């Protein structure tokens, strides 16, 4: 088959079974767009801003486990996409971003819409390529997909100068089934000796706790994690990124840990003697003050990325490998050991210690740290999220933006399945929620998708309401509107003596009219008593995007909270006046 560079791209995406291409045309990618139109290969989704292209591809990837693909033009197209690329990088999401570039002959001459895309993206990609010759194009694309999706996944940028896609230069093309790279051989299998050693330590633990992260989701290890945790009878907590990998509704789940984690999760972390970190990276929002992090614990760390191990916290038993592979091996070893036939919890050689540990945890749980006053007239954001769970029966795909609403959703939605909670954890990108929801909805056309956001975040990519109309995406937007940049305001209240520097939003649009102007349904709700009915009404509109603007309690704070520089056990709980 003789194809031009542009045709190779179209054909390659088809051969890789890419379902959607999120993009925005421009000068440097015109040949590619022309080929896409004629090839009828992937479905192209025209976003309204390149940042949204990368977020939508990211949402698609997070909710399916497949590689998300975006196409943008050179210069501003590429720079607009950078925030989305960095977002995917920090959360290890497999993404291939094709960026147009000026022709090779003028690279370096400050040509129109030229930027050094490889240079700009280098610090926020897993790898990037500049294709200088059409002969290298197919192989480079194959490498990009391979690198993005294997090992610790991440975004890969392929920069393609316009002359490489010249329709008049045709070369033979055939699809490569696989590719080898001498400089890239990610580890998958954990070291058997390390796994055995870890298991021994676990079985002798008196106060063990599992601390699991996004790596469990990325590795599709939810099933093996559930089996292992249930067989061992250990408590488990999860990072923001790992929510859903273990069911929130299960008795052994302590809730999220970290800055806004539950009292019981953080106290268990502080007191544990054996910490089993699985696909988590000891982020500063999780550890709090490092000196006071898990002071008495031996630490086991399972991660596919060797550089994650002992990066901030020194660990005792590192296991480099694919999380699912390692957990499955642990399960096999447990099966082989004598005690496996006994009742739940008795795998631990010290069953009494484990019972005492659970007794202690139950004491902590009695604090009921996520309590809040539900009887207020003005709407509590927590209440909206709890009702959202009820109305969607906990079965929705939920995306979020960044701030208080994100924490409330993580705390109160109660995710029971992996890949249902789609949020920007590492980079903390406002504006992520709506475009990510588009990618999620396209990947799951018949499923319920909601974007929980705030009036600050939603305005960062509000233009995507047009994309949602064009492709008839019935996303439900839950706007928790407190007329403040809530998390900024909270920090200003706590740490700046209540000086609310620029955290108040003036001139907030009428979101109902705004949604309607794009052709969607808009609703505004300002009474607690109306929340449930409004949600029911909105979710009953299966084929419509509904924007519900909830006017919430203005100065609500996210609790519990570990202030920066404090230890895990130094949480601040909601003041009693807030509780009933």
């Amino acid at each position, binding site marked *: 088959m003789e194809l031009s560079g542009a045709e190779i791209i179209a054909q390659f995406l088809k051969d890789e079974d890419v379902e959607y291409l999120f993009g925005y045309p421009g000068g440097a990618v015109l040949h590619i767009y022309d080929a896409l139109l004629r090839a009828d290969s992937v479905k192209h989704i025209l976003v309204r801003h390149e940042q949204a292209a990368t977020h939508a591809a990211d949402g698609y990837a997070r909710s399916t486990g497949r590689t998300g693909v975006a196409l943008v033009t050179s210069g501003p197209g590429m720079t607009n996409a950078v925030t989305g690329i960095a977002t995917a990088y920090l959360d290890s999401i497999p993404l291939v971003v094709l960026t147009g570039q000026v022709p090779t002959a003028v690279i370096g001459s400050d040509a129109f819409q030229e930027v050094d895309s*490889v*240079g700009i993206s*280098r*610090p926020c990609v*897993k*790898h*990037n390529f*500049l294709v200088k010759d059409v002969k290298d194009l197919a192989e480079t694309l194959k490498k990009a997909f391979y*690198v993005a999706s294997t090992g610790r996944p991440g975004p890969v940028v392929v920069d393609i100068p316009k002359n490489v896609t010249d329709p008049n230069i045709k070369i033979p093309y055939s699809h490569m089934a696989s590719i080898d*790279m*001498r*400089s*890239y051989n990610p580890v998958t299998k954990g070291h058997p000796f390390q796994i055995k050693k870890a298991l021994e330590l676990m079985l002798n633990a008196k106060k063990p706790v599992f601390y699991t992260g996004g790596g469990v989701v990325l590795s599709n290890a939810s099933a093996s994690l559930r089996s292992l945790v249930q067989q061992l009878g250990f408590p488990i907590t999860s990072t923001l990124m790992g929510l859903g990998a273990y069911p929130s509704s299960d008795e052994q789940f302590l809730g999220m840990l970290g800055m806004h984690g539950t009292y019981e999760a953080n106290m268990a972390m502080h007191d544990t003697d054996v910490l089993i970190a699985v696909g988590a990276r000891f982020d500063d929002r999780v550890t709090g003050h490092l000196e006071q992090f898990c002071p008495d614990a031996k630490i086991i760390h399972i991660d596919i*990325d*060797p*550089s994650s*191990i*002992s*990066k901030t916290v*020194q660990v005792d038993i590192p296991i480099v490998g694919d999380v699912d592979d390692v957990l499955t091996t642990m399960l096999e070893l447990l099966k082989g050991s004598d005690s496996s036939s006994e009742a739940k919890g008795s795998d631990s050689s010290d069953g009494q210690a484990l019972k005492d540990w659970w007794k202690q945890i139950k004491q902590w749980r009695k604090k009921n740290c996520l309590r809040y006053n539900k009887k207020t007239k003005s709407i509590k954001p927590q209440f909206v999220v709890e009702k959202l769970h009820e109305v969607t029966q906990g079965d929705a795909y939920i995306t979020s933006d960044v701030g208080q609403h994100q924490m409330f959703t993580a705390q109160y939605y109660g995710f029971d399945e992996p890949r249902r909670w789609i949020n920007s954890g590492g980079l903390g990108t406002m504006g992520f929620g709506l475009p990510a929801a588009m990618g999620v909805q396209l990947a799951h056309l018949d499923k319920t998708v909601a974007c929980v956001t705030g009036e600050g975040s939603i305005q960062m990519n509000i233009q995507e309401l047009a994309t949602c109309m064009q492709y008839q995406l019935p996303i439900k937007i839950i706007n928790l509107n407190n007329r403040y940049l809530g998390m900024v305001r909270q920090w200003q209240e706590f740490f700046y003596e209540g000086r609310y520097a620029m955290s108040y939003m003036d001139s907030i649009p009428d979101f109902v009219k705004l949604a309607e102007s794009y052709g969607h349904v808009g609703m505004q709700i300002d009474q607690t008593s109306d929340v449930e009915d409004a949600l029911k009404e909105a979710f009953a509109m299966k084929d419509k995007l509904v924007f519900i603007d909830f006017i919430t309690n203005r100065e609500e704070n996210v609790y519990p909270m570990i202030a920066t520089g404090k230890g895990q056990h130094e949480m601040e709980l909601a003041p009693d006046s807030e509780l009933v």
Partner: protein
Amino acid sequence: MRHIISILLENESGALSRVAGLFSARAYNIESLTVAPTEDPSLSRMTLVTSGSAEIIEQITKQLNKLIDVVKLNDLNVSHVQHLEREMMLIKVKAPVSARDEIMRLSGIFRGNIIDVTDDAYTVELTGTSDKLNAFIASFDCDSILETVRSGVMGIARGSSALHL
């Protein structure tokens, strides 16, 4: 502690900037860095001198290994490895008639070669450890040095163990 890290990397445009970018992005030290293609033109050999605690050096080697363009690397300053290191320097010094004997004598002591001679300046080529080059520089009066250029350190393990594919 000072570490010499030998790296084989893909001889591709941008590979060097990935290494340099990693060091600046993660605030690691680079004391010197030298790179050139090997006998296999698809590979470059880089020698990088850095310093830091054991934990930092461990992170540096892990982060370097994570770069897709890095094919293989060795830390030459680990307990089971003995290594050789050399650095080359060209140094141009003022050479009035009165100083020429002393320059030639010093060059002899340090096993340097005088590779360029003019009416008023000599250029000396010198190879050795960084300490030796420093000592040579120190044996001159600052005012008499016109220019120095150093290659950065190159390192290699002793014996038959080798960094190759």
